[in-house]
Protein backbone atom coordinates (compact mmCIF):
# COMPACT_ATOMS: atom_id res chain seq x y z
CA UNK A 1 0.00 0.00 0.00
CA UNK A 2 2.91 2.34 0.80
CA UNK A 3 4.40 1.66 -2.64
CA UNK A 4 1.05 2.29 -4.33
CA UNK A 5 0.89 5.67 -2.64
CA UNK A 6 4.43 6.53 -3.70
CA UNK A 7 3.56 5.59 -7.28
CA UNK A 8 0.51 7.85 -7.28
CA UNK A 9 2.59 10.87 -6.26
CA UNK A 10 4.52 11.23 -9.56
CA UNK A 11 1.17 11.00 -11.37
CA UNK A 12 0.11 14.15 -9.51
CA UNK A 13 3.33 15.86 -10.54
CA UNK A 14 2.80 15.02 -14.20
CA UNK A 15 -0.76 16.34 -13.95
CA UNK A 16 0.68 19.67 -12.76
CA UNK A 17 3.14 19.73 -15.66
CA UNK A 18 0.37 18.85 -18.11
CA UNK A 19 -1.60 21.81 -16.79
CA UNK A 20 1.25 24.14 -17.77
CA UNK A 21 1.35 22.74 -21.30
CA UNK A 22 -2.36 22.36 -21.96
CA UNK A 23 -3.89 25.48 -20.41
CA UNK A 24 -2.54 28.87 -21.48
CA UNK A 25 -5.10 30.84 -19.48
CA UNK A 26 -4.31 31.36 -15.80
CA UNK A 27 -7.48 30.13 -14.07
CA UNK A 28 -7.77 26.57 -15.49
CA UNK A 29 -3.99 26.24 -15.32
CA UNK A 30 -3.96 27.10 -11.63
CA UNK A 31 -6.93 24.80 -10.99
CA UNK A 32 -5.23 21.83 -12.64
CA UNK A 33 -1.94 22.47 -10.84
CA UNK A 34 -3.90 22.38 -7.58
CA UNK A 35 -5.56 19.15 -8.75
CA UNK A 36 -2.10 17.68 -9.34
CA UNK A 37 -1.12 18.63 -5.80
CA UNK A 38 -4.33 17.07 -4.52
CA UNK A 39 -3.45 13.80 -6.25
CA UNK A 40 -0.01 13.96 -4.63
CA UNK A 41 -1.69 14.54 -1.27
CA UNK A 42 -3.85 11.49 -1.89
CA UNK A 43 -0.76 9.42 -2.72
CA UNK A 44 0.97 10.65 0.44
CA UNK A 45 -2.08 9.78 2.52
CA UNK A 46 -2.13 6.26 1.07
CA UNK A 47 1.60 5.86 1.72
CA UNK A 48 1.20 7.04 5.31
CA UNK A 49 -1.73 4.68 5.79
CA UNK A 50 0.40 1.83 4.44
CA UNK A 51 3.14 2.74 6.91
CA UNK A 52 0.66 2.71 9.80
CA UNK A 53 -0.65 -0.72 8.83
CA UNK A 54 2.89 -2.08 8.60
CA UNK A 55 3.70 -0.62 12.02
CA UNK A 56 0.52 -2.08 13.49
CA UNK A 57 1.77 -5.55 12.64
CA UNK A 58 5.20 -5.09 14.23
CA UNK A 59 4.72 -2.98 17.36
CA UNK A 60 7.40 -3.47 19.98
Amino acid sequence: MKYAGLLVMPAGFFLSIAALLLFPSPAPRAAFVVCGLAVEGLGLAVAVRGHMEARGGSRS
Partner: protein
Amino acid sequence: MTPNPMSDAAFTLTLALLILAPLAIAGVALINTGLGRSRSAAQALLGNLAILAVTAIVFALVGAALTGNLPGTAGGAGHTFQLAGKSWNWLGAAPFMLGGLGSAPPQSQLALLFEFMAVAFAAMVPWGSGADRWRLMAGCAAAAVLAALVFPLLAHWVWTGGWLAQLGVNFGLGAGFVDPGGAATVHVLGGLSALAVIWIAGPRKGKFPKEGFATALPGHNAVYILFGCLLALVGWLAWNVAGAILWLHAPLASLAVTAVNTLLSAAGAVAVTFAVTQVRFGKPDASLCANGWLAGLVASSACAALLSPGEALFVGLLAGIATPLLVELLELAVSIDDPSGAITVHAAGGILGLLAAGIFSSQPGQLVAQLVGIAALLGLVLPLVYLLFWLLNRLVPFRVDPDGERIGMDLHELGGGAYPEFVIHRDESYR
Protein backbone atom coordinates in the same frame (compact mmCIF):
# COMPACT_ATOMS: atom_id res chain seq x y z
CA MET B 1 20.43 33.41 -17.13
CA THR B 2 23.38 35.80 -17.03
CA PRO B 3 24.02 37.29 -13.61
CA ASN B 4 24.57 40.99 -13.09
CA PRO B 5 28.24 41.75 -12.48
CA MET B 6 28.93 41.73 -8.76
CA SER B 7 30.46 44.76 -7.09
CA ASP B 8 33.47 44.37 -4.81
CA ALA B 9 31.37 45.40 -1.83
CA ALA B 10 28.73 42.78 -2.60
CA PHE B 11 31.41 40.13 -3.12
CA THR B 12 33.10 40.89 0.20
CA LEU B 13 29.83 41.01 2.09
CA THR B 14 28.58 37.74 0.59
CA LEU B 15 31.86 35.97 1.33
CA ALA B 16 31.75 37.17 4.94
CA LEU B 17 28.14 36.02 5.27
CA LEU B 18 28.93 32.62 3.81
CA ILE B 19 31.67 32.18 6.39
CA LEU B 20 29.07 32.80 9.12
CA ALA B 21 26.38 30.64 7.51
CA PRO B 22 27.70 27.29 8.87
CA LEU B 23 26.57 28.48 12.32
CA ALA B 24 23.06 27.48 11.15
CA ILE B 25 24.37 23.97 10.54
CA ALA B 26 26.11 23.95 13.93
CA GLY B 27 22.95 25.13 15.66
CA VAL B 28 20.77 22.47 14.08
CA ALA B 29 23.40 19.81 14.85
CA LEU B 30 23.35 20.85 18.51
CA ILE B 31 19.54 20.87 18.60
CA ASN B 32 19.32 17.40 17.05
CA THR B 33 21.91 16.04 19.48
CA GLY B 34 20.03 17.46 22.45
CA LEU B 35 16.76 16.00 21.17
CA GLY B 36 18.27 12.50 21.02
CA ARG B 37 19.20 10.29 23.95
CA SER B 38 22.33 10.72 26.08
CA ARG B 39 23.62 7.27 25.11
CA SER B 40 23.72 8.30 21.42
CA ALA B 41 24.96 11.89 21.77
CA ALA B 42 28.56 11.40 20.61
CA GLN B 43 27.46 9.32 17.63
CA ALA B 44 24.91 11.99 16.74
CA LEU B 45 27.44 14.84 16.68
CA LEU B 46 30.15 12.76 15.02
CA GLY B 47 27.57 11.84 12.41
CA ASN B 48 27.00 15.51 11.64
CA LEU B 49 30.74 16.01 11.14
CA ALA B 50 31.02 12.90 8.99
CA ILE B 51 28.05 13.96 6.86
CA LEU B 52 29.62 17.40 6.38
CA ALA B 53 32.82 15.75 5.21
CA VAL B 54 31.15 13.20 2.94
CA THR B 55 28.87 15.73 1.27
CA ALA B 56 31.77 18.16 0.68
CA ILE B 57 33.88 15.48 -1.02
CA VAL B 58 31.07 13.90 -3.05
CA PHE B 59 29.66 17.27 -4.09
CA ALA B 60 33.12 18.43 -5.21
CA LEU B 61 33.72 15.25 -7.21
CA VAL B 62 30.30 14.76 -8.81
CA GLY B 63 27.48 16.93 -7.47
CA ALA B 64 28.85 20.32 -8.47
CA ALA B 65 29.09 19.19 -12.09
CA LEU B 66 25.43 18.17 -12.14
CA THR B 67 24.38 21.38 -10.42
CA GLY B 68 25.87 23.30 -13.32
CA ASN B 69 27.29 26.43 -11.74
CA LEU B 70 30.69 26.23 -13.39
CA PRO B 71 32.48 27.22 -15.49
CA GLY B 72 31.60 30.81 -15.42
CA THR B 73 28.02 30.52 -16.50
CA ALA B 74 26.08 30.84 -13.24
CA GLY B 75 23.33 28.91 -14.92
CA GLY B 76 22.11 28.21 -18.36
CA ALA B 77 24.55 25.41 -19.11
CA GLY B 78 22.72 22.13 -18.88
CA HIS B 79 21.12 19.13 -20.48
CA THR B 80 17.83 20.08 -22.07
CA PHE B 81 14.98 18.46 -23.96
CA GLN B 82 12.17 19.98 -25.99
CA LEU B 83 8.54 19.46 -25.00
CA ALA B 84 5.56 21.33 -26.44
CA GLY B 85 7.88 23.88 -28.01
CA LYS B 86 9.58 24.72 -24.73
CA SER B 87 13.13 23.99 -23.64
CA TRP B 88 13.31 22.02 -20.37
CA ASN B 89 16.70 22.33 -18.69
CA TRP B 90 16.76 19.36 -16.30
CA LEU B 91 20.42 18.68 -15.41
CA GLY B 92 23.57 20.78 -15.12
CA ALA B 93 26.54 20.13 -17.36
CA ALA B 94 29.71 21.50 -15.79
CA PRO B 95 33.12 19.78 -15.56
CA PHE B 96 33.58 17.16 -12.86
CA MET B 97 35.93 17.69 -9.88
CA LEU B 98 35.36 21.45 -9.86
CA GLY B 99 37.06 22.00 -13.20
CA GLY B 100 37.14 25.68 -14.10
CA LEU B 101 36.55 26.88 -10.53
CA GLY B 102 39.61 29.14 -10.48
CA SER B 103 38.67 30.93 -13.68
CA ALA B 104 34.96 31.24 -12.90
CA PRO B 105 33.52 34.69 -12.13
CA PRO B 106 33.37 35.63 -8.43
CA GLN B 107 29.60 35.23 -8.27
CA SER B 108 29.79 31.65 -9.54
CA GLN B 109 32.48 30.84 -6.98
CA LEU B 110 30.33 32.23 -4.18
CA ALA B 111 27.28 30.37 -5.50
CA LEU B 112 29.30 27.17 -5.37
CA LEU B 113 30.35 27.88 -1.78
CA PHE B 114 26.68 28.44 -0.91
CA GLU B 115 25.81 25.10 -2.50
CA PHE B 116 28.54 23.29 -0.56
CA MET B 117 26.90 24.40 2.67
CA ALA B 118 23.40 23.80 1.40
CA VAL B 119 24.11 20.20 0.47
CA ALA B 120 25.68 19.51 3.88
CA PHE B 121 22.68 21.04 5.62
CA ALA B 122 20.18 19.09 3.51
CA ALA B 123 21.94 15.79 4.24
CA MET B 124 22.18 16.56 7.96
CA VAL B 125 18.45 17.05 8.42
CA PRO B 126 17.46 13.35 8.13
CA TRP B 127 20.34 12.38 10.44
CA GLY B 128 18.46 13.93 13.37
CA SER B 129 15.31 11.99 12.51
CA GLY B 130 17.17 8.68 12.46
CA ALA B 131 18.65 9.35 15.90
CA ASP B 132 19.21 6.42 18.26
CA ARG B 133 18.86 3.73 15.57
CA TRP B 134 20.41 4.88 12.25
CA ARG B 135 23.91 3.49 11.71
CA LEU B 136 26.71 5.97 11.08
CA MET B 137 27.88 4.20 7.93
CA ALA B 138 24.37 4.16 6.51
CA GLY B 139 23.93 7.84 7.33
CA CYS B 140 27.12 8.69 5.44
CA ALA B 141 26.06 6.56 2.48
CA ALA B 142 22.67 8.31 2.36
CA ALA B 143 24.44 11.68 2.54
CA ALA B 144 26.63 10.65 -0.40
CA VAL B 145 23.55 9.75 -2.46
CA LEU B 146 21.93 13.08 -1.68
CA ALA B 147 25.12 15.00 -2.50
CA ALA B 148 25.84 13.13 -5.72
CA LEU B 149 22.43 13.07 -7.29
CA VAL B 150 19.32 14.42 -5.57
CA PHE B 151 20.57 17.79 -4.31
CA PRO B 152 22.36 18.65 -7.59
CA LEU B 153 19.23 17.85 -9.56
CA LEU B 154 17.05 20.06 -7.37
CA ALA B 155 19.62 22.85 -7.00
CA HIS B 156 20.00 22.99 -10.78
CA TRP B 157 16.25 23.20 -11.28
CA VAL B 158 15.89 26.01 -8.73
CA TRP B 159 19.12 28.02 -8.71
CA THR B 160 21.13 27.55 -11.88
CA GLY B 161 18.74 28.07 -14.75
CA GLY B 162 16.84 24.80 -14.55
CA TRP B 163 13.23 24.31 -15.61
CA LEU B 164 11.74 25.52 -12.32
CA ALA B 165 13.74 28.75 -12.48
CA GLN B 166 12.61 29.17 -16.11
CA LEU B 167 8.87 28.88 -15.39
CA GLY B 168 8.63 32.66 -15.60
CA VAL B 169 10.31 32.85 -19.02
CA ASN B 170 8.63 29.79 -20.51
CA PHE B 171 5.13 30.05 -19.08
CA GLY B 172 4.81 33.61 -17.79
CA LEU B 173 4.62 32.47 -14.16
CA GLY B 174 6.01 35.46 -12.26
CA ALA B 175 9.78 35.26 -11.80
CA GLY B 176 9.73 31.46 -11.97
CA PHE B 177 10.08 29.32 -8.86
CA VAL B 178 11.93 31.38 -6.24
CA ASP B 179 13.79 30.00 -3.22
CA PRO B 180 16.62 32.34 -2.25
CA GLY B 181 17.40 30.81 1.15
CA GLY B 182 17.14 27.14 0.26
CA ALA B 183 13.72 26.31 1.72
CA ALA B 184 13.14 23.79 -1.08
CA THR B 185 16.68 22.69 -1.90
CA VAL B 186 17.78 22.33 1.72
CA HIS B 187 14.84 22.05 4.07
CA VAL B 188 12.03 20.40 2.14
CA LEU B 189 14.55 18.01 0.60
CA GLY B 190 15.97 17.29 4.05
CA GLY B 191 12.54 16.90 5.62
CA LEU B 192 11.28 14.54 2.91
CA SER B 193 14.51 12.54 3.17
CA ALA B 194 13.83 12.31 6.91
CA LEU B 195 10.41 10.84 6.16
CA ALA B 196 12.01 8.24 3.88
CA VAL B 197 14.58 7.35 6.56
CA ILE B 198 11.89 7.00 9.23
CA TRP B 199 9.79 4.78 6.98
CA ILE B 200 12.77 2.56 6.20
CA ALA B 201 14.48 2.42 9.61
CA GLY B 202 11.28 2.26 11.65
CA PRO B 203 10.67 3.75 15.11
CA ARG B 204 12.92 3.47 18.15
CA LYS B 205 12.45 0.38 20.28
CA GLY B 206 9.68 0.99 22.78
CA LYS B 207 8.33 4.11 21.08
CA PHE B 208 5.07 2.52 20.02
CA PRO B 209 4.24 -0.26 22.50
CA LYS B 210 1.82 -3.04 21.64
CA GLU B 211 -0.79 -1.50 23.89
CA GLY B 212 -1.55 2.11 24.77
CA PHE B 213 -0.26 5.40 23.40
CA ALA B 214 3.16 6.29 22.03
CA THR B 215 5.86 6.50 24.70
CA ALA B 216 7.43 9.91 25.24
CA LEU B 217 11.22 9.71 24.72
CA PRO B 218 12.29 13.26 25.67
CA GLY B 219 15.52 14.85 24.50
CA HIS B 220 18.45 14.50 26.89
CA ASN B 221 19.75 18.08 27.01
CA ALA B 222 17.50 21.14 26.86
CA VAL B 223 20.51 23.46 27.08
CA TYR B 224 21.95 22.07 23.84
CA ILE B 225 18.55 22.47 22.21
CA LEU B 226 18.00 26.08 23.26
CA PHE B 227 21.57 27.24 22.71
CA GLY B 228 21.41 25.60 19.29
CA CYS B 229 18.44 27.85 18.50
CA LEU B 230 20.48 30.97 19.26
CA LEU B 231 23.41 29.71 17.23
CA ALA B 232 21.12 28.86 14.33
CA LEU B 233 19.74 32.41 14.27
CA VAL B 234 23.17 33.88 13.50
CA GLY B 235 23.72 31.39 10.70
CA TRP B 236 20.24 31.87 9.30
CA LEU B 237 20.59 35.66 9.14
CA ALA B 238 23.79 35.18 7.14
CA TRP B 239 22.25 32.44 5.01
CA ASN B 240 19.13 34.39 4.00
CA VAL B 241 21.00 37.61 3.24
CA ALA B 242 23.65 35.77 1.20
CA GLY B 243 20.91 33.93 -0.68
CA ALA B 244 19.14 37.18 -1.50
CA ILE B 245 22.36 38.59 -2.98
CA LEU B 246 23.27 35.46 -4.91
CA TRP B 247 19.95 34.22 -6.25
CA LEU B 248 17.79 37.37 -6.37
CA HIS B 249 20.61 39.87 -7.05
CA ALA B 250 19.10 41.98 -4.28
CA PRO B 251 20.54 45.49 -3.87
CA LEU B 252 22.59 46.10 -0.72
CA ALA B 253 20.00 48.61 0.50
CA SER B 254 17.35 45.89 0.80
CA LEU B 255 19.38 43.42 2.84
CA ALA B 256 18.58 44.77 6.28
CA VAL B 257 14.89 44.10 5.62
CA THR B 258 15.73 40.48 4.77
CA ALA B 259 17.55 40.11 8.10
CA VAL B 260 14.70 41.77 10.01
CA ASN B 261 12.17 39.49 8.29
CA THR B 262 14.20 36.42 9.27
CA LEU B 263 14.20 37.50 12.89
CA LEU B 264 10.49 38.38 12.87
CA SER B 265 9.50 35.06 11.34
CA ALA B 266 11.41 33.12 14.01
CA ALA B 267 10.16 35.40 16.78
CA GLY B 268 6.53 35.09 15.72
CA ALA B 269 6.84 31.33 15.47
CA VAL B 270 8.40 30.79 18.88
CA ALA B 271 5.96 33.16 20.57
CA VAL B 272 2.96 31.27 19.22
CA THR B 273 4.48 27.84 19.95
CA PHE B 274 5.15 29.04 23.49
CA ALA B 275 1.49 30.08 23.84
CA VAL B 276 0.10 26.92 22.21
CA THR B 277 2.14 24.59 24.43
CA GLN B 278 1.27 26.70 27.49
CA VAL B 279 -2.43 26.27 26.72
CA ARG B 280 -2.10 22.63 25.68
CA PHE B 281 0.11 21.31 28.48
CA GLY B 282 -0.17 23.98 31.19
CA LYS B 283 3.52 24.88 30.79
CA PRO B 284 5.62 25.87 27.78
CA ASP B 285 7.50 22.96 26.23
CA ALA B 286 11.19 23.73 25.59
CA SER B 287 11.76 21.25 22.77
CA LEU B 288 8.55 22.20 20.95
CA CYS B 289 9.43 25.90 21.33
CA ALA B 290 12.81 25.12 19.77
CA ASN B 291 11.03 23.35 16.93
CA GLY B 292 8.74 26.36 16.50
CA TRP B 293 11.74 28.70 16.38
CA LEU B 294 13.39 26.55 13.75
CA ALA B 295 10.17 26.26 11.72
CA GLY B 296 9.97 30.07 11.64
CA LEU B 297 13.56 30.26 10.44
CA VAL B 298 12.96 27.58 7.81
CA ALA B 299 9.86 29.37 6.50
CA SER B 300 11.88 32.59 6.32
CA SER B 301 14.41 30.87 4.05
CA ALA B 302 11.89 30.97 1.23
CA CYS B 303 10.37 34.36 1.74
CA ALA B 304 12.42 36.70 3.99
CA ALA B 305 13.90 38.46 0.97
CA LEU B 306 10.52 38.86 -0.70
CA LEU B 307 8.04 39.93 1.97
CA SER B 308 7.33 42.98 4.10
CA PRO B 309 8.08 42.70 7.84
CA GLY B 310 4.37 42.35 8.67
CA GLU B 311 3.97 39.49 6.21
CA ALA B 312 7.10 37.76 7.53
CA LEU B 313 5.72 38.00 11.07
CA PHE B 314 2.41 36.52 9.87
CA VAL B 315 4.25 33.60 8.22
CA GLY B 316 6.11 33.03 11.49
CA LEU B 317 2.85 33.00 13.43
CA LEU B 318 1.43 30.36 11.10
CA ALA B 319 4.60 28.25 11.45
CA GLY B 320 4.35 28.56 15.22
CA ILE B 321 0.73 27.36 15.28
CA ALA B 322 1.34 24.47 12.90
CA THR B 323 4.50 23.10 14.52
CA PRO B 324 3.27 21.72 17.86
CA LEU B 325 0.04 20.46 16.32
CA LEU B 326 1.78 18.68 13.46
CA VAL B 327 4.44 17.15 15.73
CA GLU B 328 1.67 15.68 17.86
CA LEU B 329 -0.36 14.55 14.86
CA LEU B 330 2.58 12.74 13.25
CA GLU B 331 3.51 10.95 16.46
CA LEU B 332 0.13 10.04 17.86
CA ALA B 333 -2.07 9.66 14.80
CA VAL B 334 0.35 8.53 12.11
CA SER B 335 2.93 6.51 14.13
CA ILE B 336 5.94 8.43 12.84
CA ASP B 337 8.88 8.50 15.26
CA ASP B 338 10.76 11.67 14.34
CA PRO B 339 13.00 12.61 17.32
CA SER B 340 14.14 15.90 15.80
CA GLY B 341 10.78 16.88 14.31
CA ALA B 342 12.44 17.32 10.90
CA ILE B 343 9.33 16.49 8.90
CA THR B 344 7.36 19.22 10.65
CA VAL B 345 10.13 21.79 10.98
CA HIS B 346 11.96 21.40 7.69
CA ALA B 347 9.45 19.89 5.23
CA ALA B 348 6.25 21.57 6.44
CA GLY B 349 7.99 24.82 7.44
CA GLY B 350 9.73 24.99 4.06
CA ILE B 351 6.51 24.38 2.13
CA LEU B 352 4.77 27.09 4.17
CA GLY B 353 7.52 29.57 3.29
CA LEU B 354 7.42 28.64 -0.40
CA LEU B 355 3.65 29.13 -0.47
CA ALA B 356 3.98 32.48 1.30
CA ALA B 357 6.48 33.63 -1.32
CA GLY B 358 3.79 33.03 -3.94
CA ILE B 359 0.75 34.24 -2.00
CA PHE B 360 2.26 37.61 -1.05
CA SER B 361 3.90 38.22 -4.42
CA SER B 362 2.56 41.00 -6.61
CA GLN B 363 3.70 39.26 -9.80
CA PRO B 364 0.96 37.40 -11.70
CA GLY B 365 1.49 33.65 -11.79
CA GLN B 366 4.04 33.56 -8.97
CA LEU B 367 1.80 31.42 -6.75
CA VAL B 368 1.35 28.87 -9.56
CA ALA B 369 5.14 28.75 -10.03
CA GLN B 370 5.56 28.04 -6.33
CA LEU B 371 2.86 25.35 -6.46
CA VAL B 372 4.58 23.64 -9.40
CA GLY B 373 7.84 23.65 -7.42
CA ILE B 374 6.09 22.11 -4.41
CA ALA B 375 4.50 19.54 -6.74
CA ALA B 376 7.98 18.61 -8.00
CA LEU B 377 9.23 18.19 -4.43
CA LEU B 378 6.36 15.98 -3.32
CA GLY B 379 5.70 14.16 -6.56
CA LEU B 380 9.23 13.54 -7.82
CA VAL B 381 11.77 14.15 -5.09
CA LEU B 382 10.08 12.17 -2.27
CA PRO B 383 9.50 9.00 -4.37
CA LEU B 384 13.02 9.31 -5.82
CA VAL B 385 14.65 9.67 -2.40
CA TYR B 386 12.58 6.81 -1.00
CA LEU B 387 13.57 4.55 -3.92
CA LEU B 388 17.28 5.42 -3.59
CA PHE B 389 17.26 4.95 0.19
CA TRP B 390 15.30 1.70 -0.13
CA LEU B 391 17.96 0.36 -2.52
CA LEU B 392 20.74 1.68 -0.30
CA ASN B 393 19.21 -0.08 2.71
CA ARG B 394 19.72 -3.37 0.87
CA LEU B 395 23.45 -2.65 0.56
CA VAL B 396 24.10 -0.83 3.83
CA PRO B 397 21.39 -1.65 6.38
CA PHE B 398 20.07 1.51 7.97
CA ARG B 399 18.95 0.14 11.30
CA VAL B 400 21.32 -0.90 14.04
CA ASP B 401 20.84 -4.40 15.48
CA PRO B 402 18.61 -4.71 18.60
CA ASP B 403 21.58 -5.16 20.92
CA GLY B 404 23.22 -2.01 19.60
CA GLU B 405 20.03 -0.05 20.11
CA ARG B 406 19.76 -1.36 23.66
CA ILE B 407 23.26 -0.32 24.74
CA GLY B 408 23.12 2.95 22.78
CA MET B 409 24.77 4.10 19.57
CA ASP B 410 27.79 5.57 21.38
CA LEU B 411 28.94 2.34 22.94
CA HIS B 412 27.89 0.23 19.98
CA GLU B 413 29.44 2.31 17.18
CA LEU B 414 32.15 4.32 18.94
CA GLY B 415 33.07 2.15 21.90
CA GLY B 416 32.61 4.96 24.40
CA GLY B 417 29.89 7.30 25.60
CA ALA B 418 29.59 11.06 25.33
CA TYR B 419 29.30 11.37 29.12
CA PRO B 420 31.52 8.66 30.61
CA GLU B 421 31.16 9.98 34.17
CA PHE B 422 27.36 9.96 34.08
CA VAL B 423 25.21 7.06 35.23
CA ILE B 424 23.17 5.90 32.28
CA HIS B 425 19.56 5.23 33.24
CA ARG B 426 18.10 1.83 32.65
CA ASP B 427 15.56 1.91 29.84
CA GLU B 428 12.19 0.80 31.18
CA SER B 429 11.04 -0.34 27.76
CA TYR B 430 13.57 -3.19 27.73
CA ARG B 431 12.39 -4.91 30.87
